């Protein structure tokens, strides 16, 4: 990597930035899920790692969250954008050199940010935990150069049109920067009180809603038509999806604070808008599944489609939960319980991760021009992820329902802790499976880079997946 930092732009092979981002994202995925598994162990057995004072739960929880969001998910997005955007514009990435520097500074910044969180230097705001100097770094050193690369690649495209995926990439990067700068106003402007609490959740909601969900969806808009060879089912449904994301997903921030004394009208507005998130969800799922027409065999045969379509199918329960759990009618029961934790993992580990894993699998094969080293290990990774996630989701949902019931029947809290104990163990097991699956993936990817069979020019990796 280092030799490319100071090379001339023309000497850097196309796809270098995407490959570096891809490998980094997998490494961060291993670290992030490892931390998750470690934290989960402490929730089941609090004295298990007693003596490791530097790894206290209260310090490590946010490190897990930010390692998976900024390390795995965001870097997998960066990797995907750096190869999908140019591919869709029949052009090169605007600047590979910028991409390589971006990747380096991204990793350095992330290490610094996580180290600070780890040592307890935090703003004390969920999801915007980073202190404001780090926020500035994230915005202007990590995100702006990345966005610039994406935008300029789209501007310099050699097609008249911009495909749906690239609308999302360009729009979401813009919205992410806006959300980052405005969502951190509690820190820039020292907002206090309910304004601070509300803006904290405005940030948290919108960074999930305007970056993670739509970009993951945009990736599947590329992967599914590309691998199946079918045209995207409908350009016009793509419009419905894109505009409803911008209009409806950016508004329900207040539904995270339904039990706080925010103005009632704001909660009413947020909960209606929250249900309307089903509009982009329905449009999206329908568009992707109808694109699969006639090629469903690939769901079984092809590893990328297997990941992608599993992610899309997981988006259905995700959005059903998301739409309805935030209404007053349901929120009072499950607010602040493990149910929400399960939901968050359904979004990030279920829907989004499966979509990105597919794109990283595909991108690495295409860019390295090498076939996967082992399809069996890839399948193994898939099932470890899916089973591990299912265990996690089921156990946390059940424990959330227990907690909700205990809340309304005013059960002493320690009884809830006792009742949740078995589910905490299952949660730990599920998380550990995901962690081990990812180690396998990292190994498989390194071996692919080193010893994978070369893909002949003009062929797709998917076409020759089963030829020896």
């Amino acid at each position: 990597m280092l030799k490319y930092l100071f090379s001339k732009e023309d000497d850097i092979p196309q796809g270098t930035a995407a490959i570096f981002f891809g490998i980094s994202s997998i490494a961060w995925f291993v670290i992030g899920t490892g931390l998750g598994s470690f934290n989960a162990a402490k929730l089941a057995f609090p004295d298990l790692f007693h003596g490791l004072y530097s790894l206290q739960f209260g310090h490590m929880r946010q490190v897990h969250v930010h390692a998976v969001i900024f390390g795995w998910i965001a870097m997998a997005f960066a990797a995907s954008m750096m190869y999908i955007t140019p591919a869709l514009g029949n052009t090169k990435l605007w600047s590979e050199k910028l991409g390589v520097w971006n990747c380096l500074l991204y990793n350095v910044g992330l290490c610094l940010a996580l180290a600070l969180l780890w040592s307890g230097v935090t703003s004390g705001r969920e999801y915007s935990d980073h202190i404001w100097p780090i926020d500035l770094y994230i915005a202007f050193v990590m995100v702006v150069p990345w966005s610039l690369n994406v935008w300029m690649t789209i501007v310099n495209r050699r097609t008249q049109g911009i495909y749906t995926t690239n609308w999302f990439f360009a729009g979401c990067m813009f919205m992410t920067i806006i959300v980052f700068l405005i969502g951190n106003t509690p820190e820039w402007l020292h907002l206090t009180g309910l304004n601070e609490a509300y803006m904290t959740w405005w940030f948290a909601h919108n960074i999930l809603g305007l970056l993670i969900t739509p970009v993951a969806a945009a990736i599947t808009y590329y992967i599914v038509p590309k691998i199946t060879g079918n045209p995207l089912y409908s350009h016009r449904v793509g419009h419905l999806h894109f505009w409803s994301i911008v209009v409806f997903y950016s508004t329900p921030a207040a539904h995270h604070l339904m039990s706080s004394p925010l103005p009632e009208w704001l909660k009413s507005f947020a909960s209606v808008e929250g249900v309307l998130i089903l509009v982009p969800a329905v449009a999206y799922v329908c568009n992707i599944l109808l694109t699969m027409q006639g090629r469903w065999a690939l769901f079984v045969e092809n590893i990328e489609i297997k990941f992608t379509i599993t992610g899309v199918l997981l988006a259905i329960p995700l959005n059903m939960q998301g739409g309805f759990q935030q209404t007053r009618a349901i929120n009072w029961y499950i607010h602040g319980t493990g149910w929400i934790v399960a939901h968050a993992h359904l979004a990030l580990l279920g829907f989004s991760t499966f979509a990105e894993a597919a794109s990283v699998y595909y991108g690495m094969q295409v860019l390295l021009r090498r076939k996967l080293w082992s399809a069996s290990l890839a399948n193994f990774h898939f099932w470890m992820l899916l089973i591990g996630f299912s265990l996690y989701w089921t156990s946390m949902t059940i424990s959330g329902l227990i907690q909700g019931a205990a809340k309304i029947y005013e059960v002493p809290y320690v009884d809830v802790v006792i009742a949740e104990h078995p589910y905490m163990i299952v949660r730990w097991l599920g998380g550990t499976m995901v962690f081990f699956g990812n180690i396998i993936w990292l190994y498989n990817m390194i071996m692919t880079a080193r010893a994978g069979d070369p893909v002949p020019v003009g062929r797709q990796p998917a076409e020759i997946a089963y030829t020896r």
Partner: protein
Amino acid sequence: MGWTFNNPLFSLTTDDQNKEAKHTWEHESLGGIAENNNPLPRPVIGLLLLTFATAIAITFPLYGQRPTAAIYLDYVSLMNSTMVQEVMNDRTITHDAANQKAMALIEDSLAHFDSKYTFQRAQHPIDLDQLRVIGPAIIELQRAGVDLEEYSVIGPNVVKSNFFNIQPDGTVIAKQPWWDKGYQISFWYFIGFCLAVIITVKRLPHFSWRPDHTIAH
């Protein structure tokens, strides 16, 4: 924008624009990907309409909330009337039987009057023992001249509700809202969205036109 007013939903574009759009559509390959021009399937349109109806219906603020003190005021006044008190203090029958008889009397009397609380009373039934407990608090609040709708019954307590409808002048009304500024904004917001998307989508070539993807590849 060329808008054919006698056929507004089928074409919001001129023939020239449509021709140009079709040409662009068919003549470019976006990284080896093409797009079709299918409409939303009818069932999905139904699903989306259902979603909006559900969104408005399920987010009614009245769901999942505590009973207000106002719905029990009539119960309490009737309980304190001599007629009901006589039944309640009847030593010849058991406490439970007296309770039931008295409650039947109260409910019978209430059935004779129209009340805006009928629905909420059915949602939050109460028995006479609980009424005895909250009765004095409700009477006291009534004497204080406050609006009982701003108070909730929580177990044995009658407490100020936790709703904050901030009025334009800055005062706060603690009533359970059922229709507020947030709903109105949502409503217009949704309609604005629908109009914008309909205009956008209807300006595309009609969905009966299928692009020929063999041209670009």
